[in-house]
């Protein structure tokens, strides 16, 4: 066999295997609806991503058990970007162009969202971002179903200030989430007659907090606010407790618990921390009890904790499915218009309604306290609007808007 012949035959072989691989997918495509999932299932962010995929799997299985959508089965297409931003771009393209999914659910950090948002915008593929984040994204191609600072920090800071005092020291992760969230803390502190003594940022790999802890003690704040993120930052809570300060200066956080920090730390280390999210596993509503029953039946009774992000993903899928039913189609624009009519669902966290002006959600928010590795609900605020984003974003008036607004204090 000479070189040319070899190239020819191997070319045919490749073409044959290629089309062989493609055939079943295209055959399937006609009678089912593909839903893309891009969540980190390995690498540093997998503590967040795995529960999200589990929740999405459950939501899709329930949809199929109830007869599917528009008479078709829903099929999950899952990609693992391995906590790597380049893979996010690649998989978003693959999902939209090759696998032709009807919607993409995914993205965890704000960085990953900003990576895939333009890709999906260009490909005219609907995008659901189901994570709590810093707010301000204004784009008709995306629906952000997670809570934003006006909903969480806006409830948590006044509550904590009333309980503990007006001087707040802020420690935050050094990227857009921490920077923007700490500005919201400052704004809400000032609006309630308080102040932030200092705001300090830490790159995600900092593990030595000794000098910072002494500085916090020297500043004598009434309370500490933490927007720290990820595994390395857990050392802060460790060293904070080791210095005995968790007994002296109380702490509130907008991130604690999302990565199950309350399970990693001991009860003595984390008891008394105040948090605020849309969903806590310990919410005692009939909707949540039933949801947890189904969740534990599917993934085992020993599932450590159903997180805020998992519940957000579950609710995100339900909202989209509701939109598809109303539109009677999976067409990108038709579903968007249907969702903009103010669709709402009853999720595990309560009623969730899409706000047409911002493509964010109106939902319940609870303040809770860490107690013995669990969350004790203190107060639930019904139907909090995404007022941070709606102050700057109006997609009805300006549907072509496409940017992330940043708050100025």
């Amino acid at each position, binding site marked *: 066999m000479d070189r040319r012949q070899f190239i020819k035959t191997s070319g045919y072989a490749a073409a044959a295997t290629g089309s062989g691989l493609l055939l079943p997918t295209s055959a399937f495509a006609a009678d089912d609806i593909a839903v893309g999932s891009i969540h980190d299932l390995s690498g540093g962010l997998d503590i967040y991503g795995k529960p999200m995929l589990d929740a999405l799997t459950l939501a899709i299985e329930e949809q199929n058990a109830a007869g599917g959508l528009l008479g078709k089965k829903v099929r999950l297409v899952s990609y693992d970007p391995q906590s790597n931003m380049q893979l996010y771009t690649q998989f978003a393209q693959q999902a939209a162009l090759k696998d032709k999914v009807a919607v993409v659910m995914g993205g965890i950090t704000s960085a990953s969202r900003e990576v895939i948002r333009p890709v999906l915008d260009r490909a005219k593929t609907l995008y659901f971002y189901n994570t709590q984040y810093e707010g301000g994204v204004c784009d008709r191609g995306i629906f952000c179903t997670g809570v934003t600072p006006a909903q969480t920090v806006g409830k948590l800071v006044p509550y904590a200030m009333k309980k503990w005092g007006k001087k707040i020291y802020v420690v935050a992760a050094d990227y857009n989430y921490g920077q923007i969230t700490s500005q919201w803390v400052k704004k809400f502190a000032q609006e309630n007659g308080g102040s932030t003594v200092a705001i300090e940022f830490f790159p995600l790999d900092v593990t*030595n907090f*000794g000098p910072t802890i002494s500085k916090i003690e020297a500043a004598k704040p009434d309370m500490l606010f933490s927007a720290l993120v990820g595994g390395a*930052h857990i050392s802060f809570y*460790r060293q904070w407790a080791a210095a005995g300060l968790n007994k002296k200066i109380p702490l509130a956080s907008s991130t604690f618990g999302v990565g199950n920090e309350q399970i990693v730390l001991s009860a003595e280390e984390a008891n008394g921390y105040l948090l605020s999210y849309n969903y806590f596993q310990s919410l005692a509503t009939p909707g949540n009890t039933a949801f947890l029953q189904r969740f534990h039946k599917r993934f085992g009774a020993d599932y450590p904790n159903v997180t805020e992000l998992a519940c957000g993903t579950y609710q995100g899928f339900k909202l989209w499915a509701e939109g598809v039913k109303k539109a009677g189609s999976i067409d990108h624009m038709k579903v968007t218009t249907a969702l903009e009519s103010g669709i709402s669902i009853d999720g595990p966290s309560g009623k969730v309604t899409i706000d047409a002006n911002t493509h964010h959600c109106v939902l319940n928010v609870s303040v809770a306290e860490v107690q013995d590795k669990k969350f004790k609900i203190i107060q639930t605020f019904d139907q909090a609007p995404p007022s941070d984003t709606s102050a700057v974003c109006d997609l009805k008036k300006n549907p072509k808007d496409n940017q992330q607004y940043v708050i100025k204090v």
Partner: protein
Amino acid sequence: MDLAAIVVIQVLYGIASLVIVSAGLAVIFGMMKVINLAHGEFMMLGAYATLGALKIGINLWVAIFVAAPLVVGGIGVLLERLVIRRLYGRMIDTMLATWGLSLLLVGVVTSAFGNTTAGISTPLGSFTVGAYSVSVYTLLIIGVAVVLGVALRAVLLKTQLGLIARGTMQNPAMADALGISPSRVYMVTFGVGAALSGLAGGLLAPLTGVVPTMGGAFIAKAFITVIGGGPAILAGLVGASTFFGAINQIAAFLSTPVFGEVALLFAAIVMLRLLPQGITGRFFKGSL
């Protein structure tokens, strides 16, 4: 006054943690000229060994001071026999091999224990200096660093083992001619270096989150300390740790921990420009 005491404690702590984190690397690089890029992963293994020992009911202090060094020392000896000994004298190849090992170890630990953050609470509680609280564990770290330095010196200078090790590093052919097997000395030295890294990991476990990738946070500092220290192992380790640790912590106090890291790296660059052979290339020449 209280603040001054706190600053002194934190600076000593900064120096001590650099000594502990770099000791294993200093032994392996300083004595054997093997650039061990898996140093961070050895520490990670030490942390996991401590957690594992705790889980089967072993006392915390035994887990840190016995289990972690033993387990990681054993793994070190195994890896030396399987991989490193085939590559002595080929610096680039050892770098590549140890880098591969580091990726392998991260992968193995991730698939065994999952990529979740584990950890243990810091023991011993706290004490107060005036208006400030300090963790007792901080003092323990300082104490361990001092003991470690003294013990290293004693072993290298006062024991036959130390003499044989130093002799072999200086002239392996002559040691061989005198009836000492260099291959065995290398194996033991690598094992001791790995055990020291394991101890560092065990000591860090109660201070940080334990994840398979935790080594990455420490390896750069360890390398800077060892390179900055220069040819004398012990004097270099202590000298560079003191210099970098003090700069890092004082800068962190004056501004933020981020700036502390920047100051450390900047000091390292300036120092290596002025003293390309490291601190002991100019000062304390001929010391250990």
